[in-house]
């Protein structure tokens, strides 16, 4: 799967849960949303190896 996050791109070979992906990238479910093939998913969603994933940071402002 191809994962975009804050200007970086990561590649993962194996399917995994959205929660596992956040954990692998040391991100919190409070600060990042997981969007798979343009749809928002919950942490228990299984991401398949051909999916396009975007991790959206929700924290903003100064």
């Amino acid at each position, binding site marked *: 799967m191809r994962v975009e996050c804050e200007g970086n791109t990561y590649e993962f070979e194996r399917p995994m849960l959205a929660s596992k992906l956040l954990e692998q990238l040391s991100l*919190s*479910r*409070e*600060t990042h*949303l997981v*969007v798979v093939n343009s*749809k*928002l*998913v*919950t*942490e*228990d*969603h299984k991401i398949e190896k051909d999916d396009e994933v975007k991790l*959206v*940071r*929700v*924290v*903003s*402002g*100064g």
Partner: protein
Amino acid sequence: MKCRVCGKPASINLRSYKTALCEEDFIAFLEKRVSNTIKKYRLMEEADRPVVAVSGGKDSLSLWYMINRIGYAADGIYVDLGIEGYSGRSLGKIRQMADILRRKVYIFHVQEALQRGIDGIAKAIRRPTCSACGTIKRYIMNRICIDKGYTLLATGHNLDDEASALFGNILYWKKEYLWKKNVLLEGKEDHLVKKIKPFFLCSEREIAAYAIMKGIDYIYEECPFSKDAKTLTYKGILNGIEESSPGTKIMFVKGYLNMVKEKGGEKEDGREGRYCLQCGYPTFSDKCSFCRLLDRFGTGCAVEFDQYD
């Protein structure tokens, strides 16, 4: 995870509400919460003419979109700070939303009025950029409302903004600010417009989810001057607590609102409020901060706005 309302696959897990919802039900849930906030705190009446302070970010664009959708026709105001690249991209997103909503947006260009961008102004007056930005934005937003007859200024401040600001005020015991936050800030007739924060009880995560679901095209990158802001550190700490104890942020802010009812009437700084002799804006001296900026850097002309509609 299934949607608690319809049983379809959920799109978002709302741990602070011990529920999960699909896209359709989450949109209805969040819009209802904002409608309820507006009604409960009497933020808008039928006769009001609201305008939304827009920056191009997720919160202000979502607010502008949502309040129009739930029945409150509102125009927008944008202050172009003259930040190279960033301000132009933000304005592009705002114009796009104005076209979708078929609403007007007023634009004030700092560079044209004060002959320099926000960073140049901040350096010249030896103040932090965010402080100079706040002075200009507050003034211009108010000025447009007064000049154009808007009765309410709605801002996209969300639960996380309020919780982090409150956290900072408590950490440093800033008594002069501590009891001044609220969902509604009263105005002063002909001088200061009433301000409302319909997203006060909506988290950043919920608003970002709404923006994604609604396909709202917002500016994702941060303002280049906010990257070292203390607010971001406080938000990080509060999100760490929220991760292990869901619902902490909403309890913190709701608890504050309950306390502010008792404390809100207390006068904290004791200074007597006056009005600027030049423009009528509330100030503590003869001339407001913005008029002093105009005297120093301005063209000497009246404050002018572009209008996009």
